[in-house]
């Protein structure tokens, strides 16, 4: 087991290096020079050369990469061109917002999808299951940003109960020392702040959660259906257990394993989905920052964000694999 973990860590490092190389080269090769964007009227070629040198873009790409990698090894991801702030501080400062949003969306998706799957399994073959299948189809076929627009229209404009933009009301004084606002508001027992933060997060979280909830529901329902035909489930029925108890106590534990793997994989996609949804809701997370960085061709910031996303993706995959091994005895003893 330990050997497997170490092997995964090594492959993770290789993956991250590969991502770093690709991102570094690609964003410099595609058209869109940040210095060309900041040239004002009247600037001449010498002004362009001066700014290229100022931002280190006058060197060859391999040389730029070596300099950047040397900094990364020491924890220095460079300085953002647009904000003139250290990249590491910027991306780590925004990471908590994106993580909180993603986790909230994941929780909603798993709870919602789980309940729907259980209800669909309990009433399989009937109208309830048909309605659930139709609902799942709709949830899956509508992309998250469109769900966001629907939610804004419903709960932001027609029945304005949630906040349309931002992460917290500007008028509130925040006593937080971390950027995990939701978590810290609970720790500090500041439920007034918690309520305000949730009011800002619910719509983007729901927009992200709907498609994932549908996937969870479909897969778990299918797994449960298959499990319901196994001998040990039949045995439970012959013991006189009710259908609900059979599903919850007997079938669910085995049926949940494939769903767990899927949730892990989908969580990484969910974090990727925050890019558009955060933009739509002006949520101050990594995704929103990423779009600005791309528009402004803020090369160091793009690199920092992509590397962080890559770290999250590989870490989530690693955790899911380990969790799966723990829950599945066949893998644990392999």
């Amino acid at each position, binding site marked *: 087991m330990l050997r497997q973990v170490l092997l995964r860590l090594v492959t993770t490092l290789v993956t991250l290096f590969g991502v770093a190389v690709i991102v570094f080269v690609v964003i410099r090769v595609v058209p869109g020079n940040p210095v060309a964007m900041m*040239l004002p009227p009247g600037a001449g070629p010498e002004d362009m050369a001066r700014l290229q040198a100022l931002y280190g873009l006058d060197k060859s790409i391999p040389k730029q990469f070596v300099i950047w990698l040397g900094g990364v090894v020491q924890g220095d991801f460079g300085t953002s061109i647009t904000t003139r*702030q250290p990249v590491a501080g910027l991306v780590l400062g925004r990471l908590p917002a994106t993580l909180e949003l993603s986790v909230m969306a994941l929780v909603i998706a798993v709870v919602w999808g789980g309940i729907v799957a259980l209800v669909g399994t309990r009433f399989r073959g009937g109208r309830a299951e048909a309605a659930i299948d139709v609902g799942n189809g709709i949830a899956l076929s509508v992309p998250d940003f469109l769900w966001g627009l629907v939610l804004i229209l419903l709960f932001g404009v027609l029945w304005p109960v949630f906040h349309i933009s931002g992460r917290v009301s*500007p008028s509130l004084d925040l006593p937080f020392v971390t950027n995990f606002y939701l978590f810290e508001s609970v720790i500090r027992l500041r439920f007034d702040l918690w309520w305000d933060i949730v009011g800002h997060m619910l719509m983007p979280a729901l927009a992200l959660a709907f498609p994932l909830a549908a996937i969870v529901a479909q897969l778990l329902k299918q797994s449960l259906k298959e499990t319901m035909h196994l001998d040990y489930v039949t045995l439970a029925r012959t013991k006189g257990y009710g259908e609900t108890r059979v599903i919850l106590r007997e079938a669910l534990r085995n049926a949940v394993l494939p769903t767990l793997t899927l949730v892990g994989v989908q969580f990484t996609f969910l974090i990727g989905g925050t890019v558009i949804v955060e933009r739509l809701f002006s949520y101050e997370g990594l995704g929103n920052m990423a779009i600005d960085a791309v528009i402004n061709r803020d090369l160091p910031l793009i690199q920092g964000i992509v590397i962080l996303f890559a770290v999250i993706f590989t870490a989530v995959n690693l955790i899911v694999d380990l969790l799966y091994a723990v829950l599945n005895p066949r893998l644990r003893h392999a």
Partner: protein
Amino acid sequence: MKLTRRSLLQASAATVALGFAKPVLAQAIDELVIAYNVNLPSWDPTVGLSGVNPTLQGFYQTVFDQFILQKPDLSPAPGLLTAWGWSDDRKQVWMDVREGVKWHDGSPFTAEDVAWSLVRVAKPETGSPIQFVWGTLTNHRVEGNRVIADVAQFDPTIFKWMYFLTGYVLPKAYYERVGAEGFEAAPIGTGPYKVEKYERNAFVRLKANADYWGGKPEFDTVTIKFVTDAASRVAEVESGNSHVTLEMPYEEFDRLKGKAGLAGVAKPISDIGMIFFNDIDVMTDPNVRKAAVMAVDKQTIIDRLLSGYGVAIDTLETPDYDAYDPSIKTPYDPEGAKALLAASGYGPDKPVKFKIQTTKGFKPKDYEIIQAIVGLWRRVGIEAEIEVYEIAKHFELRAADQLAPAAFYNWGNSVGDPTTSTGFAMYGPSPHSVWDGQDVIDMINPLWGEADEAKRIEGWKGVSRHIAENALVLPLLQYVQPILHDARVKVTPHASGALLPHLMTRA
């Protein structure tokens, strides 16, 4: 009361609704909330990309003062500088500094601040992108309440730059004490509002500067939310979460401005839409260029695609600019276009072909406008292939003089001087120009340093006429900026496009 499942659900829903519900459209607006269309990446208005980004100037002019004030009609007025000018021999500039002004931290504003700010933006190492302008002044010195500098290279527009990009006065003592990073964290200026709270990518909360030399602004507290998505901005105002917003589809603007409780104002701003012609391939044929200009019915495009919000233009100078000449016209004439193309051997059956580049969604209906133009061109015998690119690619290609034969762009010129519109857009050696014709270069060269203002402006009008007669560029329209707002707020639009909270009052 009997508790049923239905009543419990209803009670829960009501509780949630009441809990999250915000006071929407209360009677009096205590705190003005503006949904802005861009994020503010940096508080230093003099360096990097932010310094030359026209859409950010509204933030900066809210907190900082420029050397010279610019009124909503783009004309200059006394600000931190109360008077300014050149010596008779044009070897020196002098600037008189307003007395009694305080920085947001209460410290006195002095002539030293003005001199230091001018010196700082002239230094290449600060990252000032306009160093080439500020560097034309040297040997800055303070004599009492007057700042004097020597003119290293005469630039007739130097005082216009003092209310243009990077022309801001920053606090010398404070900046030197806190450094660049400290200034980003807690910026202070002499402007109408003080920064109270700033959340990157989220909002800035401002408090009125009670000591502002121009008078205390009407709203004590202003929150500017950064809402980059147009649909969300509209929803912000429609729901009452924000009181003012800008830049939305004109159809949405028309729909909402008549709605109860809402109002709208739409005025032309200093930005224009244009099509660059690169002097390569078929664009070296004057008949092709002239036909391409004559075949475009600008007014119909404005009416149909922009709901009438736009002003058709025939030169790169709008009616608000100093060198605008209403006598220069390039009328819509499709038959004339056909005749010109026929003279060069082209026609609807044998069209002249070239590529046109455009952004999509960067400016209102940019792609649709180009589609319409390509359709109009097709009728006279021009077959243009559309290539969509990002604005970043446009900048790079333009700087390298590698744009396609035709390329759509928008040009901003909030000081209205011909050098910063026609000049830099059409002067071959400029990295912003893709037209390299020597005739234009020769016409423009003497104008850069022309000291006689009337002669200078007449010279630029002559350049515009030459450009129009030879169809070296296709000017399209002056943009109109839609501002949607709560009916209880009176908004004074600024022709530069900056949305300024201190120009807003209670209706």
